[in-house]
């Protein structure tokens, strides 16, 4: 167990290093220096060279990479010339809002998808199962912005129950209390996630239902309710642990789209504006943060699964 964990940690560390090199090189190749942006379009080549020299942008790439990593380790994520702020400050302002949107959507998605998937597996091929499967199929094939637009059309324009724009408040407590504005963005992100999770939960439950211990439990006369609770739910939920870890890329992409659609001042919207303003320190830091999150998510999912499932005791 310990040696498995150590091996898993080492692999993750290697992947994080690889990802950081890759993303840094990629962005460096695309945007070698922000000089043009800082000095303006009328700057002469000599001025740009001088600025690059003064700020270390003429050093070899490898030196720049190690300087960047060194800065990262000291909590310096770079400086956004477009926003005239440090990237760290920009992130700190917004990270709680994005975490809230993703977190609550994920929780809602699990709360819906888990029982739904089990229900579908138990009542396989019933009307309810077919309706849920079709809905999941449609949602799964739907770009999240289209779903968001439909929700806005129905619940903000035709029936003005909710706001078409997310909460603009700077205080996270206000945002949390503002259901009038936050329901639609949360619903958009949650529904897209439900589609993926419930399909998975359904097939995972069907696998469990075919196991011998379910037959044994039924044969010894255990009430169906207990069969479902003790044997089905617990075993079928195990693979969900992995799925939640693996769904981080989906959530990050969903955040980007949902925040842009509903104009929610989170990290996704910051990334979107950084694309428009060609603000590459923000792009670099955000892409890197996303990649690290994905690696850590996978790692946590693996460890959680090892702890939760006694059958996985890998040497």
């Amino acid at each position, binding site marked *: 167990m310990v040696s498995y964990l150590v091996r898993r940690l080492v*692999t993750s560390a*290697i*992947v*994080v290093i*690889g*990802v950081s090199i*890759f*993303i840094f090189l*990629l*962005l460096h190749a*695309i*945007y070698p220096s922000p000089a043009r942006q800082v000095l303006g379009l009328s700057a002469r080549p000599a001025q740009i060279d001088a600025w690059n020299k003064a700020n270390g942008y003429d050093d070899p790439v490898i030196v720049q990479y190690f300087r960047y990593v060194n800065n990262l380790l000291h909590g310096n994520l770079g400086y956004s010339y477009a926003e005239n702020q440090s990237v760290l400050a920009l992130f700190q302002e917004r990270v709680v809002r994005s975490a809230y949107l993703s977190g609550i959507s994920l929780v809602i998605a699990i709360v819906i998808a888990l029982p739904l998937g089990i229900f579908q597996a138990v009542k396989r091929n019933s009307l309810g199962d077919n309706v849920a499967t079709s809905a999941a*199929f*449609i949602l*799964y*094939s*739907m*770009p999240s*912005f*289209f779903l968001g*637009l*439909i929700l*806005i*059309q129905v619940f903000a*324009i035709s029936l003005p129950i909710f706001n078409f724009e997310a909460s603009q408040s700077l205080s996270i407590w206000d945002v949390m209390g503002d259901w009038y504005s936050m329901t639609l963005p949360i619903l958009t992100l949650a529904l897209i996630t439900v589609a993926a999770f419930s399909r998975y939960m359904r097939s995972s439950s069907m696998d469990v239902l075919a196991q011998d211990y379910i037959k044994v439990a039924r044969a010894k006369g255990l009430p169906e309710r207990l069969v479902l609770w003790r044997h089905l739910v617990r075993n079928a939920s195990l693979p969900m642990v992995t799925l939640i870890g693996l769904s981080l*890329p989906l959530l*990050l*992409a969903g955040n*980007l*789209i949902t925040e*842009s*659609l509903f104009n929610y001042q989170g990290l996704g919207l910051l*990334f*979107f504006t950084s*694309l*428009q303003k*060609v603000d590459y320190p923000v*792009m670099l830091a*955000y*892409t890197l943060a*996303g*990649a690290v999150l*994905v*690696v850590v998510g*996978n790692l946590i999912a693996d460890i959680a699964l090892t702890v939760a499932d006694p059958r996985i005791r890998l040497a």
Partner: protein
Amino acid sequence: MAINPSAAGSLPPLDVQRAPEGGEVGAVQSGWRLALREFASNRLAVIGFAILIFFVLFSFVGPLIYHTNQLDTSLTLADQPPSGAHLLGTDGNGFDELGRIMKGGQAALEIGFFAAFVAIVIGTLWGAVSGLAGGIVDSTLMRVVDVFLSVPFLFVVLILAVKFGATVLSLSLVIGFFAWQVPARLVRGEVLTLRERDFVLAARTAGATNWRLVSRHLIPNALGVVIVNVTFQVADAILAVSYVGFLGFGLHFPNVDWGDQLSDGATSLQSGYWWLIYPVGACIVLTVMALNFIGDALRDAMDVRLRRR
């Protein structure tokens, strides 16, 4: 025996199963045929296939029948509701919406299939080399796959689309270049089991080079998992393009993509111009759903084929 293809159509599956070990070619062929039969008997697969064919015809043959002007803007024609002259109305620039959806469909399908092709070619070669080589080469190549899997796909595609400008070619290459990890893993897994098989040993003993082993024996036999993956790749690529287009970094005039059209339509959501949103949105959903249906059915069909190995 199922070696004669013309007679095989009427053979019951039982005979096929009893194909002798020596009849490897015949057995493999009938495996594919079995998969095809399984696929054709899946209702969703047939529906998905029909929808896909419809969209291919709609996008590429449609403009030859339904002529529209997609080059000159006309503000007097802007935002008209559906009518006899414009079956799905016109958009804010006075372009015929139905003709525009056809044009967007061309872009979506071209990028989808080309990106999937790029991803599959890279992934298949990568996985085959990795699985065959084993050892340190294998673990290095697989760590590279891990790295690429961790890079947030949409972010990188957006960054590259902003830098290089979006064209059908550039978007296909960018999407394909960041989507080959899954086929690489699948093919490697297949190769790991295949390389222990007798026919690979026989080929090796006969003096086959590594390249010949990969190209003649391993890749053709691992093709099943690749074919299943292609359809999902196309679906994902079409979705990715729609995201890029919706965020405003998609194809440039006179080209158009579905995501771009939806984002234009979204600005007139409050004016109630439904024809600018729902038809094009439905096109995205239907195309992606059709591909997912086909992919699921192909996977089931391939399971039938693989079970016989």
